[in-house]
């Protein structure tokens, strides 16, 4: 059963459209990763889901359907009730969500009591319960600590716990581990996987690391200049990518086990103000044709829901079949 449905969503700043025609559905307990490079509009999309488009951005088109209501039509007061309680969010900087001058415990209590009417003592116990569920060894100590007394990884774990305090249906994570060290990053990611098991929370994670995305997520959307160029299961994206951009992205990542020349992607991406009528990746695409710039790429959906927006898709398939 899907709990969040995004249909044809477009977000713009003035005349520039930062997010264009994005659609996806999220099932309960499912993890969706949005992969994209800087400036691809991935964070804007994520923020729009809780009605917080940054700095003057506006939803121009489309719907975000959660529990039979369209979030784009709600006002801020109505959204505030949903935020935190049903849809929670964590950010990139570990502890950016934590107030540096207040104890972790009191922040937990405040977060819980804003949405549920319980006493402070009850809220305290609830917070302890969550921390223990998330395997914090010294939960009581952490409740008494200030954010600066915790390490970066620990802060991010606490921020996740805080976001989960009200057992939301959906957790939005904006680059939750990119500020952390490799070993810590893995631990936080593993923990997010585990809490999905515990609470059956659906997670949308935004990241620039395609390998991380396919490790954690069930479904991956590859975003480029505000569009999902490819959308499919993590396995498909990683092992049999369809879109030239996804392939180029994967070829840019060094791997321990295989030594292949890194190719990278040459050139500059289009600015949002100078997007061509056709494919937005056409100027950097190695596999595209001359007409790609002007020809609007068709949206190809396979039988099991793998989406790819590319003009050359048919040709590629034929090519590869021919090779086989």
């Amino acid at each position: 059963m899907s709990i969040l449905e995004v249909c044809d969503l477009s977000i713009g700043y003035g005349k520039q459209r930062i997010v264009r025609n994005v659609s996806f559905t999220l099932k309960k307990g499912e993890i969706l990763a949005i992969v994209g490079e800087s400036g691809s509009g991935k964070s804007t999309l994520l923020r729009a889901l809780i009605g917080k488009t940054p700095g003057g951005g506006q939803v121009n088109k489309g719907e975000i359907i959660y529990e039979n209501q369209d979030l784009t039509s709600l006002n801020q007061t109505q959204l505030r009730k949903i935020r935190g309680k049903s849809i929670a969010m964590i950010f990139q900087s570990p502890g950016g969500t934590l107030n540096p001058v207040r104890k972790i415990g009191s922040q937990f209590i405040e977060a819980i009591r804003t949405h549920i009417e319980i006493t402070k003592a009850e809220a305290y116990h609830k917070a302890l319960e969550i921390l223990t569920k998330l395997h914090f060894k010294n939960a009581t100590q952490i409740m008494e600590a200030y954010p600066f007394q915790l390490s970066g990884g620990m802060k991010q774990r606490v921020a996740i716990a805080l976001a989960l305090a009200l057992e939301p249906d959906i957790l939005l994570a904006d680059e939750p581990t990119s500020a952390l060290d490799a070993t810590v990053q893995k631990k936080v990611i593993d923990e997010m996987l585990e809490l999905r098991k515990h609470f059956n929370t659906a997670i949308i994670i935004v990241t620039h690391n395609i390998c991380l995305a396919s490790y954690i997520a069930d479904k991956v959307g590859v975003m480029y200049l505000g569009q999902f160029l490819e959308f499919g299961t993590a396995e498909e994206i990683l092992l049999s990518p369809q879109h030239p951009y996804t392939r180029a992205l994967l070829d840019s990542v060094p791997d321990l086990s295989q030594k292949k020349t890194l190719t990278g992607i040459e050139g500059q991406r289009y600015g949002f103000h100078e997007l061509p009528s056709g494919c937005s990746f056409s100027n950097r695409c190695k596999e595209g044709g001359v007409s790609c710039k002007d020809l609007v790429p068709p949206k190809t959906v396979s039988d099991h829901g793998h989406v790819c927006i590319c003009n050359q898709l048919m040709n590629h398939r034929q090519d590869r079949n021919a090779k086989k």
Partner: protein
Amino acid sequence: MQKNKNKTEVILKIEDLTVEYFSKKGKKRAVNRFSLTIKEGECVGLVGESGCGKSTLANAIMGFVPFSSGKICLKGNQLPLKKQTQVREHYTNVQMIFQNINESMNLRQSVFDYIAEPLRNLKKCRGNDLDRQVGKLLEITGLPQAYGGRYPAQISGGEKQRVVIAKALAVQPKLIICDEPTSALDVSVQALVIELLRKMQKDQQMAYLFISHDLPLVSYLCSRIVVMYDGEVVEIIPNVDLMTELKHPYSQDLLEATFSKQSDERIVKKQIQYHELQSNGCQYYPYCELAIGICNESRPQLKKIGEGHEIACHRYGGKHE
């Protein structure tokens, strides 16, 4: 490793280097008894988490940070540098590529002036010769000639890093220190920069000290890999092919933490136990899953356990095996 035996010259020799910082809490050792030699044309990767002293080490080699004990010797030049001629010579031998692309260029200096600066100061290059040399550097780093007149605000991050690389190459140094040169770039751009670095190394036979927290990236570019934890070397492997042979618990954690393109298995590891550290024990003891009694009591020393493979762990080498 074997083929390097034909008497290549040692460029950089670091012995027992210790760098200390003074803070309110007292002395903090950023780098502790660090030793390393780099030979001509060799690529050494230095891996470790943030705050483990990687950047401090780089700054110490460049002469930006004073060190309290030990020896740094670069092509016969002993640090700290005293005379101006010594400084000049030092910087013709070693150059650095920085991590923070937005801070590594003076916002009010054109690309041309930026690249020309070391040529002017160190090689006393002037006039037409200078124009020609800068033009050549722009060309080999894949930048259009017109970029010479641009300012940092007018070019993208990847291009900035190319400019920084061009500047580092200008004096044809023997060693280039790369301090996380791509951590601020997108992967697609990172790949281009890394390929450029690799090509430069092949063409000009320079040595690299490549500092990063990204193990796959380091293994892609480097032959020898040094793993650093909390200011100390915990493991050295002579060859990337021995990557899977990494034995130190921290190295293993690092290996496990990398997301591979192939494996799709999600092995959620058991929860880490946190031990209290006694000051004289192993630095990694608090996080180590394989710790044994002695780990808390004495600091392990680097021991040789194979050809060029050294490790600082009580579980390997010596009587505790």
